[in-house]
């Protein structure tokens, strides 16, 4: 079955601006569910969802799991350690075995770029990419964009700079595609050794100096600096990174305007972002986490064939989104 998004959500590159707006709009009514005392609606009752996490994840896995449970789906979590994967099973065999159990959806996190697409091409179930290697992390991109939209109203013409390790960041790629499609102006900033050599062909602005980025931007999405980037020689030290590229209070104080601060987490306080910025008045980092659940509920609901206009009703408890499109 394919709804307004198609069978799978593999990335934001393949979506249109309208499809992205549809997900964000669908997320709006779902936000409220998490504020209730009884945080559950029956929209996905009877659906079985496997959360297949080949890479460690706390926040994304929990966020997906809450989204699934609040929509009343039955969920199973599989992590790579202690599963057949650690016994040498190939991804294609894992996929076929899941399919044989007649599941409805798979949420996959994997260290290899393209792993979600690989799975999607081999099983009938809906596949949601929860991060594949250094390729895309579409639900993270969507929750970042939803948070920006909550603050800006519209993304059109808004200036957003993504800061840090662009080369290895799936969050950066999903943000670049999504923001660009919604009409935002996108820039990146970081050491050139942590940027793709073809970054100029992405159609984004590139800042070599964080001071210039801060002067330009209305929002900064500060990426986590993976500690292994130092040991593998991309940059000399986290100390120098903070001194040259860190988002610090002093740097923000020199900005010509208030700058909204996002971070996909988990944060390295004192490395890419200082604590007084992360905890400061313009930080929306925890709003991102809250929005993550709503966005993932919207994605699950739409992929299951739910009608966007029924999202409000589904929230109320009709629970029909899925079943009526199942035949």
């Amino acid at each position, binding site marked *: 079955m394919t709804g307004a998004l198609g069978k799978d959500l593999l990335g934001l*590159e393949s979506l249109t601006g309208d499809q992205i707006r549809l997900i964000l709009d669908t997320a709006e009514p779902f936000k409220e569910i998490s504020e209730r005392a009884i945080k559950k609606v029956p929209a996905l009752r009877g659906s079985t969802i496997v959360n297949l996490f080949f890479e460690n994840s706390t926040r994304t896995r929990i966020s997906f799991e809450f989204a699934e449970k609040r929509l009343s789906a039955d969920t199973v979590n599989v992590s790579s350690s202690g599963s057949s994967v650690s016994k040498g099973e*190939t*991804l*294609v065999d894992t996929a076929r075995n899941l399919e044989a159990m007649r599941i409805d959806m798979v949420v996959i996190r*994997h260290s*290899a*770029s*393209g*792993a979600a*697409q*690989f799975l999607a091409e081999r099983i009938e179930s809906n596949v949601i990419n929860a991060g*594949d*290697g*250094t*390729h*895309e992390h579409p639900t993270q991109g969507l929750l970042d964009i939803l948070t920006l939209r909550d603050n800006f109203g519209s993304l059109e013409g808004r200036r957003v700079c993504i800061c840090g390790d662009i080369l290895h960041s*799936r969050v950066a*790629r999903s943000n670049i595609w999504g923001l660009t499609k919604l009409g935002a102006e996108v820039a990146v900033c970081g050491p050139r050794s942590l940027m*793709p*050599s*073809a*970054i100029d*062909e*992405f159609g984004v602005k590139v800042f070599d100096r964080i001071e210039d980025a801060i002067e330009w931007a209305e929002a900064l999405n500060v990426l986590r600096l993976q500690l292994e980037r130092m040991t593998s020689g991309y940059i000399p030290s986290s100390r120098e990174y903070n001194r040259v590229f860190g988002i610090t209070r002093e740097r923000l104080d020199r900005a010509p305007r208030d700058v909204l601060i996002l971070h996909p987490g988990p944060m390295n306080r004192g490395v890419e972002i200082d604590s007084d910025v992360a905890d400061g008045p313009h930080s929306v980092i925890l709003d991102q986490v809250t929005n993550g659940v709503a966005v993932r509920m919207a994605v699950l609901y739409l992929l299951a064939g739910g009608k966007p206009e029924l999202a409000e009703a589904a929230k109320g408890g009709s629970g029909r989104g899925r079943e009526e499109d199942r035949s």
Partner: protein
Amino acid sequence: MKPLLLRGGRLIDPSRGIDEKGDLLIARGVVESVGGKLGNPDDAEVIDCAGLIVSPGFIDVHCHLREPGREDVETVATGARAAAAGGFTAVCAMPNTEPVTDNQAAVGFIVRQAQRAAAARVYPIGAISVGQAGKVLAEFGEMVGAGAVAVSDDGKPVASAQLMRTALEYARTFRIPVIDHCEEPTLAAGGAMNEGIVSAELGLKGIPAEAEEIMVIRDILLARLTGGHVHLAHMSTRGSVELIRWGKDRGINVTAEVCPHHLSLTEESVRGYDTDAKMNPPLRTAADVEALQEAVKDGTIDLIATDHAPHHYDEKEREFADAPNGIVGLETALSVVVTNLVKDGSLGYSDLIERMACAPARIFNLPGGRLEKGSVADITVFDPRAEWVVEPSKFLSKGRNTPYAGMALTGRAACTIVAGLVVYRSGVSA
């Protein structure tokens, strides 16, 4: 053995400037007569070659036959039959087998397996270094004595400039080329495809063109230093072409090959994470393809070789970064070249034959490469207009890994003759 008469084909031998319609007579394993109408002398077996091109046998100087070690993905016998089906009368087998073909006994094993196969000839290439470990020079002299025609650590670059220098010097005694897989290992480490906008979008680690070009110029300079003959395997970038041109202009003893896939496909084929578009060197950009095509036409690149690299489908059916490099090429090479270079008129059949038959024989000092009375009767007959759709399941190779699956191609081998014996004919392996 009855004489064989190839009747009424278009005989092309660029080494002798021949391009004419006529008959070719083979007797006792050698070419007996070339051109004219020969009637039916000595009760010869006749093969009607009307509408077909009769060429010196194609020679592929670069393929991986996986034996010994990975007989599950290819053997000398299946590789030699696949070669014959692709119109190749001879192939050179790279030494990155398990164990490595780095001594005379290992070389002799390949020679014997090839004799048993009785299809295309198979010439072993010995390793440059023991175990291809890049440390100690292998015994070139003994390997050549056992039948090796060149040395290479292919699959790996010769990382040490000093070892490459020594190999080029030492190989001069045996008059064999030293073949290098040009890849600066620290720049290419972990790379899965060409570095550029596509790798950046797909989130795959790229291999920059410079990783190849740095080694190309190093090898050319070492050939200048030593006077040895360096043969550069599977060139893939525009910059490499410019560097080879620079070396040749200065009279340096450098020759180079290009693979059909680098003449026809770009990095765009990797979109969708198709592991059949994963090889090393990787598919590059349209500008690189254009420069390589130009280099084949003007002779900067001497010859076309397949880098035939069969893999088990299980190994290719996986995450892109973890899949092995390489595609099969023996049974599509001719067609890919005809379809992409000859059909639009940019490369003549005479030039195609020069690059696929004459130059390989000349540069690797192998029998064949000409249609001349008394020369060995290794002959390729092909249909330049045959239209077919690539169906990997019909390959004679055990390998099925090809990015050309399902594509319509033009030009196909009709008959492959080795030492006067038909080893392949129109769809059936003899």
